[in-house]
């Protein structure tokens, strides 16, 4: 099993944000976690990527327990994430931002004497071209459009050459057109680079078009898990989630 959570639970005071969730993610899949706002999607994400520590339960990555590892170690093992509120480098250029990720992943950050600019030119350009930011390479992070910032964060995460890429609401705040673009980009990354992708989403139409597996969270509990058609047919899912919208 590629990534697995076993009865993972997170409590904030008396609130159980994630309640004994056991989830399995298969290598190479595009796996979506859906659920209404407040269902615990982001918290589950934070438990997997090391932003929060679980109250109980385990997280396993490629068979090894990573429950208590700090975020930076998980990243080194191959688990990288994006944030729901886009997290980029406002005063670094697009190019420099992606370069940072590559320097970190390829273990060059303890080099004190060579110019950083000399490293990984090809790799950075390849990523920028893949996500469609090559023409904005020398612009500062905070000077590009919202949609491009989302792309930039995706480009930065690609710099760590992840095996599992966790995207927290990758289409948050985007127009329909931008959403379609990002989704086809995610699809491309999955097929061309063989990256396993885990993402959260609240817009159903987006998820069913692309995800190979879907997990549904409701009030911190996993209520359904499986192929899109199975999830769609699930009665409980229809009741708590899809009922209102479809």
């Amino acid at each position: 099993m590629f990534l697995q959570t076993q009865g993972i639970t997170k409590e904030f005071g008396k609130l159980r944000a994630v309640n004994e969730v056991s989830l399995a993610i298969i290598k190479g899949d595009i796996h979506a976690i859906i659920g209404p706002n407040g269902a615990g999607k982001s918290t589950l994400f934070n438990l997997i990527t090391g932003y929060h520590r679980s109250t109980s339960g385990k997280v396993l990555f490629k068979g090894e327990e990573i429950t208590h590892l700090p975020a930076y170690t998980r990243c080194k093992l191959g688990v990288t994430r994006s944030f729901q509120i886009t997290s980029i480098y406002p005063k670094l250029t697009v190019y420099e931002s992606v370069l940072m990720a590559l320097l970190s992943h390829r273990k060059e950050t303890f080099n004190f004497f060579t110019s950083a600019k000399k490293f990984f030119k090809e790799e950075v350009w390849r990523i920028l071209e893949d996500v469609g930011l090559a023409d904005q390479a020398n612009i500062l992070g905070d000077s590009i459009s919202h949609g491009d910032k989302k792309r930039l964060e995706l480009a930065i995460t690609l710099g760590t050459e992840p095996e599992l890429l966790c995207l927290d609401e990758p289409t948050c705040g985007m127009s329909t057109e931008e959403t379609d673009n990002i989704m086809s980009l995610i699809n491309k990354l999955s097929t061309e680079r063989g990256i396993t992708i885990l993402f959260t989403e609240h817009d159903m139409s987006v998820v069913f078009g692309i995800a190979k597996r879907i997990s549904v969270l409701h009030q911190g509990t996993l209520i359904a898990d499986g192929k899109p058609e199975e999830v769609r047919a699930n009665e409980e899912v229809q009741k708590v989630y899809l009922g209102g919208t479809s």
Partner: protein
Amino acid sequence: MKRGWWLILLLALAIIAPHVISEFYLVILGEALIMSLFALSFNLLFGYMGQLSFGQAAFYGLGGYTVAMLITKLQFSFWLSILAGVGVASIMGLIVGYFCVRLKGIYFSILTLAFGQLIFVIIFKWHNFTGGDDGIQGVFPPGILKIPIVYYYFILVVFIISAFILWRIVNSPFGHTLKAMRENPERTEFLGIHIARYQLITFVIAAAFAGLAGALWAPFYRSVAPSYLTWIKSGEPVMAAILGGPSTFFGPVLGMFIMTFIHAYILGFTHFWPIIMGTIILIIIFVLPGGILEFAKVKIKERQERGKLTKGSS
């Protein structure tokens, strides 16, 4: 390339200067170089790591005291004493930094201030070991280094080598990581960077160069005093960086030169130096908020872009 010409010009000036100016101003020039090195060490933390240290003078003072004590009490070799000064400052930097890098923003500043004052008080009170408020006199460099102009060239060489090393560090992958951590620590941590470790290393490097500056100063001035370790001394590189521009590499150097020379000049006819300095800082903060060098950089860039535009349209 243009920047290269500036550096060569400045270097030529620094080499010629001692033959043109009086001995009084030669000492001031040496002081300005040493203090500039101190300011560069501080700006590694402030400008590049993004944390304001208010205790950097402790490492400067430790460097100076180590050299002074080794030379006067143990008749240690001058060169070994300088090395030892750097070593003591680095080890202290490792200990103090271990605690400080866990904190951010104002808490980092306050803790560096507290540690700085702690080290100051130990040196100030431990009379029979450090000489207390008498300081230590008679710190002589060996041989021809006793001649101020020779010692000045020695300072110049050490300054150039140190500045070059620091320049390489801030432009290296390590320096790039520092900037990324300053811009967005969370994002950087989630790229696999153990933030505290990088900050600790930076803190030690900064302490080492501050220690080197102090170690150079003691034999130049022939003495050390506990006032070198106070928070007032720690404030000098802060002001120099703000004056010259903390986001530029040479900003703190420019700031320190301005401060040192205006100070020396003004003391000739008034003791109200802090009023003058305060006014200058006030003006800079309101008129040129990024510091002098940052302002100049922006202006030059604007001009170049305007140049490109007019060329393109004609």
